[in-house]
């Protein structure tokens, strides 16, 4: 399909009764595509911008119906006899709109990850959930990086905002300001990640520098009229040092805001890496203990930050 002419966007899931992604009870829309490669990413199937085949090796019988059916010759068998694996040329897959491979797979090893949807269809789906949200709830766009599809995101926010639906976003912040700006009038709430204050460390964790992120954060602090809550995904030994805590707190205050939500990083996404044909690179570590979390929280509080732990938020 000619992707330049699309008016909708690519999503990979819709989930109701999300309770930790903004105020109240919410419906969560997962948008595809992300510029970052965070080591702990828990939605690796959301990184690539377009739909892709998701491959569950454990269910694969290597009958190779998919290989025969693929019109783009995107599938190859790799590995030796005892350790076979299918490999997908995701470049080619991104141009496919038939997904014949999934259609002929009989074992459930292949599924289509993500699909294209028009704004109005998505809105009609969202509005069916309205009665469930209660007073404070609404819609949160997440992903992936929602602003990686800027027109789609702003159009959806506008559609919801005008229908009196509360709008929120979870963003990595690593997008050009011009991609973010069109959504701002229709946005009421932003979760904004600050993964590390040191540029080099940030790059080690996410494959990307933090300079654009920090610039965007400063500008949002000045211009965004809604509630801006920063988020720190806490990776033990990586960004939970006192140095980074001090720097993060100082930076947040310099934006003119004061709220931070700490999320202890977990390994929930690990099992999905293989699905998306990727390798999980985060070295093994223990989950941050409750005591340590509280310690970090207290440290932030002392520095003048309103700090929430995990899902223990007042909203």
């Amino acid at each position, binding site marked *: 399909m000619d992707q330049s002419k699309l008016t909708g966007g690519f999503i990979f899931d819709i*989930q*109701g009764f999300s*309770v*930790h992604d903004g105020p109240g009870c919410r419906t969560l829309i997962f948008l595809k595509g992300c510029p970052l490669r965070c080591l702990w990413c828990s939605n690796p199937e959301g990184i690539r911008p377009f739909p892709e085949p998701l491959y569950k090796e454990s269910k694969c019988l290597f009958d190779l119906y998919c290989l025969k059916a693929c019109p783009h010759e995107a599938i190859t068998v790799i590995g030796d006899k005892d350790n076979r694996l299918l490999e997908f040329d995701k470049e080619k897959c991104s141009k496919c709109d038939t997904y014949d491979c999934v259609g002929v797979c009989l074992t459930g090893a292949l599924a289509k990850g993500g*699909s294209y949807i028009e704004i109005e269809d998505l809105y009609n789906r969202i509005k069916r959930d309205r*009665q469930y949200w209660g007073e404070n709830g609404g819609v949160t766009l997440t992903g992936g990086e929602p602003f990686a599809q800027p027109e789609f995101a702003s159009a959806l926010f506008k559609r919801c905002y005008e229908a009196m639906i509360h709008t929120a976003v979870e963003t990595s912040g690593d997008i050009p300001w011009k991609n973010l700006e069109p959504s701002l009038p229709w946005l009421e709430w932003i979760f904004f990640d600050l993964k590390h204050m040191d540029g080099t460390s940030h790059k080690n964790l996410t494959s990307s520098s933090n300079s654009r992120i920090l610039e965007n954060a400063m500008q949002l602090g000045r211009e965004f009229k809604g509630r801006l809550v920063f988020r720190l995904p806490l990776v033990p030994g990586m960004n939970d040092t006192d140095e980074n805590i001090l720097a993060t707190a100082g930076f947040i205050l310099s934006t003119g805001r004061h709220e931070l939500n700490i999320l202890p990083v977990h390994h929930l996404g690990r099992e999905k890496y293989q699905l998306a044909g990727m390798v999980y690179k985060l070295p093994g570590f223990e989950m941050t203990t409750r005591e340590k979390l509280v310690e970090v929280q207290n440290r932030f509080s002392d520095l003048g930050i309103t700090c929430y732990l995990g899902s*223990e938020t007042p909203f």
Partner: protein
Amino acid sequence: MSNTGKNPADFKDCPAESINYYGNKPSQQVEDREKGRKPTPRANKARELYFSAKSSTSMEFPYWYTRRWEELDGEIPVIRRAESLKAGFEHLTPVIYPGELLSMGKASYLRSSYPMPWLSEAFFMASEDKLYQEALESGKLTADTFTTVGKGGGNVTKSAGKVISIAGKFGLRLEEMPVMLEVAKKWKDRSVDDIGHKYEQMVPGYKEKEAIMRSVICMFDSGYTLPQGREVMNYYYPLQYGIDGIIRICEEGINEVAGYPEMDRLYFYKAVIIMLRGIKSWIRNYAEEARFLASVEKEEQQKAEYLEMAGILDHISSDPPRNFHEALQMLWTFHVAVLNEDAISGLSPGRVGQVLFPFWKRDMDKGIIDRAKTIELLECMRIKFTEIDCFASMGVVGGVLSGNTFNNLALGGLTKDGISAANELEMLILETGISCETPQPTLSVLYDEKLPEEFLLKGIECTKAGAGYPAWVNNQVAMEFLLNNYGHEGMQLEEARAWAIGGCLESSPGSWMPLNLDGEIYWIPGGSAPATSVGVHFISLPKVLETVIFDGVDMRTGERIFPSHGYKLETYDELWQGFRDYFSRAVHVLTLTNNIQHDAWRKISPSLVNSMLKPDCLEKGRDLGQMGARFNTTFNIESCGNTTLVNSLASMKKNIYDDKNFSLEDYRKAILDNFGYHTAQETGSYSLVDQKPAEHFTEYRKIHRQSLDAPKFGNDDLYVDAIFKQWEDWFCEMTHNYRSLYDQPMYACQISVSTHGPMGAVTLASPDGRLSGTTFSDGSVSAYPGTDKHGPYALFNSATCWNHSQSQNSQLNMKIHPSVVRGREGSRKFLELIRSYMRKGGFHVQFNIVDSRMLKEAQADPDKFRSLLVRVAGFTQYWVELGKQIQDEVIARTEYEEL
């Protein structure tokens, strides 16, 4: 916004994975529930005692009952019945446990119950006994053969030493075995079962009924299995008049009717008096025992407690209660008394907190009770209700009830004049539900928009504690159902507000009674109908569809069940018509045969204790079987496996008729070959997740995959939801065409209880991709485990695609991971979730707040998890006392976890 505005917009492509029946990915660490508080030391001691007790049965009551019955050959039946009950009550050995504040039980063991051979004598005979073999041949006991009873906890699953295991659950002392068999033989050809069976054969098409029972299209007859229960109790008369007062009412009744026409009333009044004298002796025997224990007790406080107990029992053996403690003892005594007159499950105490509030408030005002004492008493009440056991055949106990007795206590709702009925005592009942977790009494909140937030949040706190209660049921939806079904009997809005849940989830009519306390009138609610869930028991919808596909033959056994339907099934409409034809045939013959059974029941074993309690039996001078109650439209038709049926229809519609991927013949072959898989009995697990392919499964991979990928209910997918609505609209309406024994229209009841396990066990693979022998979907609007992929909102949208007030109930079971509802915000959002479902018109939702890995650990190591409670299908039960089929099903349910 209505569901008709749906745009199905291809959401089937959205999930990251295709339907795989595995549910969401769990996190690494097992999450515990938010811990509740501990019971008082007194209750804790009693609960520990309960955990060590085994289900036991004794022959005292049935022996004396039968002996008296024999003596009175030729007496007027209702008098004979009353005398037999009296003899039974009088001879029950009283047993009082140290530390108890409430006393009395069904029989002389802590967890005791006894067989009632006057209902059915066949099922507890040893399996080599000829009687049993005969019963097996006539098809009645097939369900037992396919039911597993939980292997842990208090079940006596194997005979050991001097204890015989009966029906895999109850222990009987070896020396009582000859008595049991002797007593059972006395009832041969005279029990409700045998008499009913003799006459039900006169129904034209009776052979078809037997075939239906053998194929387990229907599970259980109604008239002799659990003829009472699934109803709300009414304690007004003993609370207001006391036993002597009721006897006086009956004596006045006799004076009015003796010698006048409609003489049945004379015998009824006389029978109630006889029966009550038996109950008086029974209570006084307990008082005597308490005094004896006091006389030998050294410890001062315990001695005083025994004496106080003797005083309370003596008083209530003749007079109405003077305070809250006495009122609670009175309520409990009559609850047990009813349980002792029939095989009963689902005898619900109803809105106890509102019934007892006037007594409690007065005591509080006078300062003779405080909150701490109230909590202790309410905790003792929880233990007492948990001690109730129900003696029935293994199929009924394991397959339907999972050992549960459904003493459902309702909270909230509205008062007679239509404002919130929640009160302070109910807050304490919720509190003790948290502090003293036990399966009984299970709790239900009658949700209404008028209920105060504080009360609702207390309910949330209780739900979060994880014992599986309270269930949340919709007050307005139930009232609408009741007004629709009982309007012709004179029910008006005000009276509709007196309802409560009877049994697991049966909306049951109630009435307001004027309790006069110190000259002030309090309108207290209570049940005013007989059992609301008798008639046609669980019909296996997927099994009916299976016979449609195979033109009337049960392919598991090769037996023809129905005559050929004559359709070629070339269109979806023909398939749907075929289903309706067979379903209607089954309902028709089962209605008639069960009416006959119930007629045998009301003639041989009429209810006396329960009749005396229910308005307006004393006023009319008629028992429940003679329509003495105010409301009598109480027969229902029950379904099982709704979602499995609908998913199967959707799969066939899509794959055969719309997309033409396969032919009907392809499906027949795949079903017979179980899609190339081993059967559940071979793999030993009843969950679809654990099934293993056989060698030739590649042949069926395509049809199985496409069946699994067909639209599934629970995802807000209009394709399948439309089929669901079509089924509901038709089913709820068609039930009204059948007439009960009391010549009233019947209604739809949609709860699976535990029948989706054993019924699944005898059903071949189904067109939705479910494999042979595996469990059906549970409840009635629950998704099939693991197939709802878009969270609770999508599930709610599907569940409310039809109007729930057309049916006595609907049932939605959900499993929620503890992390989702953690903390203060978690509580608020949890309430928001429930409230939104109620606002959409959902009738019922209940939750297991549990990490499924904890359940798996518990399956592997039952001893460590003796006190783990889970919610099954309308009830809470100890995990270790559930059968494996149901355990597997609960583990497989989709768990809503933090994203």
